[in-house]
């Protein structure tokens, strides 16, 4: 093999190795060695390993960034698929969001779901501390329309506003919060499963 061909292979594998960070060191070594073996074997199909042969073999594999993305995303999403912990799922969703619009939308949806879950829980917890101001309020705006507002109670009671649930916000807030976290986590896991089902398959 010429030194130029050798350099091409190593540059490609270095870029791949760089992008595989996050996987287990043994898995990275295994992936890199398997692809090195593939590149050398394919480049040598016509006899000797030449720069042109290496270039053709590398073109067949696609860019190291995309290839690494296939390995890393699948590994992270595999963890997320079996995990029920929101931070594992977030880790996978951030990765997915960096690769596709669908992933970005699912990430936004999950952020919204967890955010509202947290606000309901906070409201329930803060009700005993701010008994007259925390809760679900119905507030008229200047145009005369009524707005529903979930307030944590740090500000004063809204003028002309009416509290809807009273102390019921504590159990209702806690139950709603738990439900939102469960529904959001299940939704994300479902999306991840759908994505993986399509993603592990080839592109033309």
């Amino acid at each position: 093999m010429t030194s130029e061909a050798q350099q091409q292979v190593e540059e490609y594998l270095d870029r791949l190795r760089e992008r595989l960070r996050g996987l287990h060191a043994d898995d990275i070594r295994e992936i890199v060695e398997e692809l090195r073996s593939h590149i050398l074997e394919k480049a040598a199909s016509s006899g000797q390993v030449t720069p042109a042969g290496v270039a053709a073999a590398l073109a067949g594999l696609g860019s190291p960034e995309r290839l690494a993305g296939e390995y890393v995303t699948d590994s992270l999403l595999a963890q997320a698929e079996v995990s029920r912990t929101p931070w594992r799922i977030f880790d996978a969703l951030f990765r997915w969001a960096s690769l596709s619009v669908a992933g970005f939308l699912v990430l936004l949806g999950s952020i919204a779901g967890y955010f509202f879950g947290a606000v309901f829980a906070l409201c329930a917890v803060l009700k005993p501390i701010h008994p007259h101001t925390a809760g679900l309020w119905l507030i008229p705006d200047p145009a005369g329309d009524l707005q529903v507002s979930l307030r944590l109670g740090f500000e004063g009671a809204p003028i002309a506003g009416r509290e809807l649930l009273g102390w019921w916000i504590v159990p209702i807030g806690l139950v709603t919060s738990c439900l939102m976290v469960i529904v959001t986590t299940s939704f994300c896991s479902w999306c991840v499963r759908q994505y993986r089902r399509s993603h592990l398959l080839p592109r033309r």
Partner: protein
Amino acid sequence: MITSSQESAEKWEVQLRKGCLELAILAVLWGGTLYGLEILRRLESDSDLIVSEGTVYPLLSRLKALGLVKSEWVESDAGHPRKYYALTSAGKQRAVAMAAIWARFSSSMGKLLAPLGKEK
């Protein structure tokens, strides 16, 4: 209009091919142990699948993580070791189950589509 319907049919064909790759790899390995490039060549020669190399290796890695295939490094005359894959017993069970589903599906679709061929 014809172009658009042809494009839709082509997209559908791509999706169909995509859906078959996992079964195709398990089927290729049914005959014995093979390394990555051999799997790719068998897929190209024995099936009508258009296979991207950058897809097959991550898929093999995933099938291994699922316990459907196992791998082993073997020294070769080529001067570099090769990673050989073989079906595990779970992989064989999966292949048989998928093949049965395929046969059932293909047969019922064949019956359904038979009149379309006669129209031609």
